[in-house]
């Protein structure tokens, strides 16, 4: 089954933003927007759900903190207790200030790296992946809005021409 979509191209992000508002208030379904750079406020204009990456980051941070605590406890207290500067060497809590930099760094390390990997997975990005953008110009200076085509084709094309589009194409999508 083939579905038809419209590829509407703009050459300015402000025009794009207004077009997104107009399209959504006219109840056309925007499938995706391709932009050469992140457009501020576009996610809100598109009505996308807020990201949950921050929650992941917090969880990863807690994992990193726990891992550092476990690791330093094992290395410095259990496995091979060392007397450094006369500090008590058999108690984690009494030595804790010395381990804070490590606990901090591993919290940041885990949060940062795991968050990047999560972001890649969630965005379906991996090495050697083929680019998905339908038009190479979206990597340069054009903004492309992909809209599902329902109803009168000509009417819809005219609607988008009026939103300031520089080009409107009807595409057969498989």
């Amino acid at each position, binding site marked *: 089954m083939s579905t038809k979509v419209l590829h509407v191209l703009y050459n300015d992000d402000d025009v794009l933003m207004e077009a997104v508002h107009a399209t959504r208030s006219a109840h056309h379904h925007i499938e995706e927007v391709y932009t050469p750079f992140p457009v501020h406020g576009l996610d809100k204009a598109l009505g996308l759900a807020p990201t949950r990456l921050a929650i992941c980051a917090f969880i990863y941070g807690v994992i990193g903190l726990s891992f550092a605590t476990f690791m330093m406890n094992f290395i410095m207290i259990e496995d091979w207790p060392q007397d450094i500067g006369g500090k008590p060497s058999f108690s984690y809590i009494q030595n804790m*200030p010395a381990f804070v930099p490590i606990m901090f760094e591993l919290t940041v390390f885990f949060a940062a790296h795991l968050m990047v990997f999560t972001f890649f997975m969630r965005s379906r990005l991996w090495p050697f992946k083929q680019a998905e953008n339908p038009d190479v110009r979206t990597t340069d200076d054009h903004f492309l809005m992909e809209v599902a085509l329902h109803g009168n084709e000509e009417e819809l094309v005219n609607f988008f021409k009026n939103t300031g589009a520089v080009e409107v194409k009807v595409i057969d999508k498989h």
Partner: protein
Amino acid sequence: MYTFSNKLKTFAFILMALGFIGIAIGFVKAPKTTEEVEAILAAEHHGGHEVVAHDVKVASHEQIAQEVAVDSTVVSDTTKVVAPVVKHESHDDHDAHAEHTEHVKHVLHSLQNKPWAALYVACIFVMLISAGVLAFYAIQQAAQAGWSPVLFRVMEGITAYLLPGSIIFFIILVLSGMHFNHLFVWMTEGILDPTSPTYDPVVAGKSAYLNVPFWLIRAFIMLAGWNAYRHFSRKNSLAQDEASDNVIYKKNFKLAAVFLVFFIVTESISSWDWIMSFDPHWYSTLYGWYVLASFLVSGVSVIAIITIYLRANGFLPEVSTSHLHDLAKFMFGFSIFWTYLWFSQFMLMWYSNIPEEVVYFITRIENYNLPFFGMLILNFALPLLILINTDFKRLTWLIVMVGIIILCGHYLDFFNMIMPATVGDQWFIGVSEISSLLFFIGLFIYVVFTALTKAPLLAKRNPFIEESKHFHY
């Protein structure tokens, strides 16, 4: 234009009156003679406190001589550092009775210092909050920040307190310099004289810098400089409202840049002079930053609280939750920054364990355990856990709540910096402390909100005002 509501004005006056009465009570109730101290100690002892026992332990003849001579309350500094050098033979002939008398004298000095120290902490804390807001304001000007111009008049209102605040503070400094109180150990008579029993070689070595006239001159120059910037930037900001071009704005930009250079140097010096010199043997190289972080986060919290108050009363229609969100991010960030500096200072001294350094933390952990660790919860744990959530940074009631937590925590921080060296283990957050705080808060509210009525709450001709109005996160 904002009008100072009668309710708030009455509230400010009540705070000032209550505070004034409380401060007076604190001074009147401070013990005058050793007999009164005996009574207090007896009462405390029966009450189950072990202050007496604790203190008596550390005495030896030399130490007593030092203590009395220094005429101060500082057990920590002078005695503990000198302790390793003290010859131990003197222990043999010491007399329990003399020891007790000296201890009572020592407590007397602590208790006599207490109302002064309470006044000092509250005065410097509230004054530095307005200095912190002034620095924050200058940063916004120098960075040509686009988000904040709608808040400029609020910041200018808060910095109006700098002038009365620094005048009162300077008077307290002059009174200290004239020996009306004994807050600063290094001012003790005879401390520079090698033949005197109170001679302190460490303080004597620093006397080229640490002497009363130079100390007062420095304080005067620094306070005058800050107030001058506040005066001219405010004048320019008001003139810009009526201007037709950006000449005055550019002048203000240059002024802010120059001020920031002046401020970062003088802020460091002022924190050594006004706070670190309470412990004249001890030093920390990041102290200036540490104090800066403390009053900067308090200042930003005050901006947020006053902005939310004005907004709730229908003023500042241009301020959106996005502006509050940015302020909350600064509260969060500066709280972490403060913790970073606190920990950097603590860990190095804890780890190296050099007596002359670590004594600072030992006195605090032993005698100030609750405020010392309590402030870490207030200043670090709670702001971190509450403000880490994006949505929470946009809830006005939560910002106010965290702002109050931060202000309480940083008052405690100043308390912990100043009290151990002035009242020793005789600290208590009682009438003197709370009244001093109430008095300065009342004065702060009165001055700040009076200043807010003097000019429109929107800096309408600021070149970035449009961007600021439309700022959204």
